[in-house]
């Protein structure tokens, strides 16, 4: 094998690696001092996968105890030379080769790697194996379980809430301030400004921001306050217009809806900030809402809003910007609170039910962490291999 791969002066990097490997092995092989090779190499398709893996099995070399490991190589039927996949530690007798091409047949070769990187004669598979794709990805089975569990509790509580189960929730200060802020703007005869973040509709925070907009717009319609929504994405503008229209309709004041108060500025982050900052100092809004995904503009907007004396309420799940909102705004909805806001504001039972579902989700997380940590601690203290396998199953299989 060494001579065959050496002869190929290909530029493929992995072939180059194989060449390099082979080159310095030649003298050792010539001397005939290699360790005993592994035997009975078999290759079979990895079950329940997306068709990129093949399982290898072999019987260990007689010199297993003194080996550095086993060198696994592969090639497709159309390629001439084997290339290195991995070096697995001694004592191993199985390996899953991943990241294979589904359209090709694959051949494998395993050698025992002795001291001073001396390789044994290779053992190879003779019949090419083609990885097959199954209809279900078995590596994601436990993830499916987690998904169903978490979605299940949320849906279950929504159903319970619809059936009239009474729900109590703690108060969130920022939310109670929203109505007051809109009211104050009305009294002062100054507009409200709503910023739905700077990301597009492909971000869930923007969507959450717009659900809050629908409540703010309803309040504004009831108070007859002027609400301005500059957006940095035209899709967000489109969605915000639909949202506002629905809200004004729900408030019984469809005639007060003015689509021109929702307008696109520019997709460029700082162009958008420059413009909104200008709007703020010129129109002096009495209330500013920042609900969505924010980056560097968070502090630029919040400090300018502070300069013009607006009440400011922010909500975002961007942890990097939370300190600035916390420092510069009157109220800030932190992370999960921001997603909970629209449910709180609507007060509808099925909306509130989803919050209970989230709480159960957190309980499950806490329980999982506590169990896992206890297990890991016991393993560290006692070295129990049984519990270690349990913990490994939990972290390595269930939580992947």
């Amino acid at each position, binding site marked *: 094998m060494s001579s065959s791969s050496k002869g190929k002066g290909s*530029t493929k990097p992995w072939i180059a690696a194989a060449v390099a490997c082979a080159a310095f092995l030649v003298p050792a092989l010539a001397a005939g001092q290699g360790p005993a090779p592994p035997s009975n190499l078999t290759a079979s398709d990895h079950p329940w996968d997306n068709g990129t893996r093949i399982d290898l099995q072999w019987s260990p070399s007689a010199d297993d105890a003194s080996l550095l490991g086993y060198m696994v190589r592969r090639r497709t039927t159309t390629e001439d030379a084997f290339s290195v996949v991995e070096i697995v530690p001694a004592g191993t007798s199985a390996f899953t080769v991943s*990241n294979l091409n589904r359209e090709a047949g694959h051949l494998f070769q395993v050698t025992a790697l002795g001291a001073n990187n001396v390789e044994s004669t290779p053992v190879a598979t003779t019949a090419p194996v083609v990885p097959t794709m199954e209809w279900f990805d078995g590596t994601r089975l436990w993830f499916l379980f987690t998904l169903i569990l978490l979605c299940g509790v949320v849906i279950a509580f929504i159903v319970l809430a619809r059936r009239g189960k009474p729900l109590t929730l703690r108060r969130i200060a920022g939310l109670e301030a929203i109505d007051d802020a809109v009211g104050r703007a009305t009294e002062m005869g100054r507009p409200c400004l709503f910023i739905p973040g700077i990301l597009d509709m492909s971000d869930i925070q923007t969507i959450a921001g717009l659900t809050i907009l629908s409540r703010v717009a309803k309040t504004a319609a009831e108070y007859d306050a002027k609400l301005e929504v500059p957006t940095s994405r035209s899709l967000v503008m489109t969605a915000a217009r639909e949202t506002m229209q629905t809200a004004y309709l729900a408030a019984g004041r469809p005639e007060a809806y003015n689509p021109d108060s929702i307008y696109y500025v520019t997709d460029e*982050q700082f162009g958008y900030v420059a413009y909104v900052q200008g709007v703020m100092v010129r129109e002096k809004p009495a209330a500013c809402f920042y609900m969505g995904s924010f980056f560097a503009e968070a502090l630029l907007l919040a400090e300018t809003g502070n300069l013009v004396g607006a009440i400011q309420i922010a909500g975002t799940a961007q942890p990097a910007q939370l300190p600035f909102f916390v420092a510069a705004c009157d109220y800030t909805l932190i992370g999960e609170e921001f997603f909970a806001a629209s449910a709180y504001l609507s007060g509808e039972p099925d909306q509130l039910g989803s919050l209970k579902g989230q709480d159960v989700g957190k309980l499950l997380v806490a329980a999982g962490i506590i169990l896992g940590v206890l297990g890991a601690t016991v393993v560290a203290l006692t070295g129990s291999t049984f519990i270690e396998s349990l913990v490994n199953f939990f972290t390595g299989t269930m939580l992947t």
Partner: protein
Amino acid sequence: MIEFIVTQWWLVAIVIASLIPLAMRFVSGGLLETLRTLDRRWIFLLLLWSVLIPIYFIGVTGRTFPEVPSVLARATFDEIDRLSPGDSVLMAFDYDPASEGELGPMATAFVRHAAEKKLKMYFMTLWPIGPQMIDSTIAKVITADFPELAYGRDYVNLGYKSGYEAVIKVIVTNLRELYTTDSRGTGVQEIPMMEGITNIQQMKLIVNVSAGYPGTKEWVQYAVTPFPQVRLVAGATGVQAPLLYPYVPRQLPGLLGAIKGAAEYEKLVVDAYLGANPHPKYLEALRRMGPQLVAHLLIIALIVVANVVFVIDSRGKKR
């Protein structure tokens, strides 16, 4: 220092003159009262001087502060340093001119280090303005100091692809589905160093320079998490870095945070490869640490002063 003040007397004069009105207000209005009602524009002015003067000082004298590399900077350095010549490295430069102050020096140092190690560099970006950043870094380091490296053999610029993290998801298993040409429009099958490269799992290391979304977090989520054998190191802005610490070291063995991280890494690269008299373009971050220090001290001073006033006022109320 004194020599600097004497020769640059006009700058000193401007600074002092600009602060005279503030001093007069302190004298006429009283210390506490002036602090309580201080116009924020004075703070702006103080910050301007605290950044501008050190830049000018360092620019004229060429002196920088010493730097002691942290554990993470060293880990980042080692990840690249342990690679062998000819290993392929994906250089994912996800930033734009707005963040160049922090990330430009990192990108420069990364490319310099990779060029010194004779690694094959595959440049790409998920940011629309990223290609300019790649081009300018290539011009600054490879074209200027490594003219022997050939495009297409030693480095290639795959350019920008839209689609945010979806791009990562695709190329981690199938690079060619999205990258059919390089940024110059040459088909990938005609580029020698692309031969045999079908996905980015084949890269020995991914080096990400990240200013936000999409960036290091997405690389961790969609490249490292599903394919743990993928090695990733990152240079991130000060804003991004704290969010990335949860991924260190398992998913992210090396992380450079902000200009400080850049300066530490610069120091490591310079010490290891550039000798006693490096070209000043490789000391950019080290130079920027000067204004950093003075501005930090100013901000700390502002917080302290504001809190002293606050404590005095709240005591007064209690009485």
